[in-house]
């Protein structure tokens, strides 16, 4: 049984961008995990889960 990726869903407190990071990237990305891809600000964690219904509104960040 698998359950797809688990994401942390964020919004940026500066530019408002919505984005998400898969939690299995925490180790690889280190301090970059959770940063806004546009302005580099620390994202505000909204929720976590596996593909929430509004998932597509959040850009997936992998690097």
């Amino acid at each position, binding site marked *: *049984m698998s359950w797809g990726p688990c994401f942390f869903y964020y919004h940026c407190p500066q530019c408002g961008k919505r984005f998400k990071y898969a939690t299995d*990237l925490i180790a690889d990305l280190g301090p970059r995990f959770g940063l806004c891809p546009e302005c580099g600000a620390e994202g505000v964690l909204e929720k976590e889960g596996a593909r929430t219904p509004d998932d597509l509104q959040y850009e997936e960040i992998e690097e």
Partner: protein
Amino acid sequence: MAKKTIITAAVTGAWPKKENNPNVPLTPAEIAEDVYKCWQAGAAVAHLHMRDDAGNGTMDKNKFAETLRLLKTNHPDCDIVLNLTTSGDLYATEETRQIHLKELRPEMGSYDCGSMNWMHSGLFINSPAFLTELGNNMQEWGVKPEIECFDPGMIANAAYYLKKGVLKGPLYFQMCMGCANGIPGSVKNLLFMKETMDTLCPGSNWSAFGVGHSAMEILYAAVALGGNVRVGMEDNVMYSKGVLAESNAQFVERAARVIREFGNEVATPDEAREIIGLKK
């Protein structure tokens, strides 16, 4: 002769719903049709979960039976290997997790080789007593275990049960990469899983899948490392970044292209039976 690579289609799982992707099959009729289309596209093994009428994961044996009946009745030409889950509902009893194997006698069933936290919120329990009973029962019922491993410790656990006689070699592993609370999905980690398997359970065969961002990385790496592959909406509802999958067959078609471009051939169900060590 080119190496044969097995494609397993995991079409449903216990988690994604229509709101995640409207193309996820949930009813026995939808699942049976999807399995047939995946077989036509090159899948040799179908890993099956069931859903209740509300779309939640269930181990209801009647749902399994109905799906198999529909597949057999509507598509008698389909000789795909059936692999039924034993872990389709976190709240199922140990009895309901295996009774469908006893009654339906599929060629394969999943064997999740250890316990873990589930999505940082629940427990996925596979106790020593359950794994011992399940392993012994699967031997008695002629159901080949697919050893699902979410981290290297589960491979060590498989070696323990192999030594005890609860599992019988050669084993067939499914490396589950990138699931929450399991090993992250990366080539480096897949190589470590494979090397651990080769050391602890030599002579075993294996397959792998990655969820989310690691799906393609693990697909290519599994083929390159001589393994087999699993694809489907149980593991990924997105075909690519930001793009919902149109069907399970779409995943199978892509895997078949990757296998052929690499220089391998897509294994037929009978070839898969030989590789995995099944008795038809």
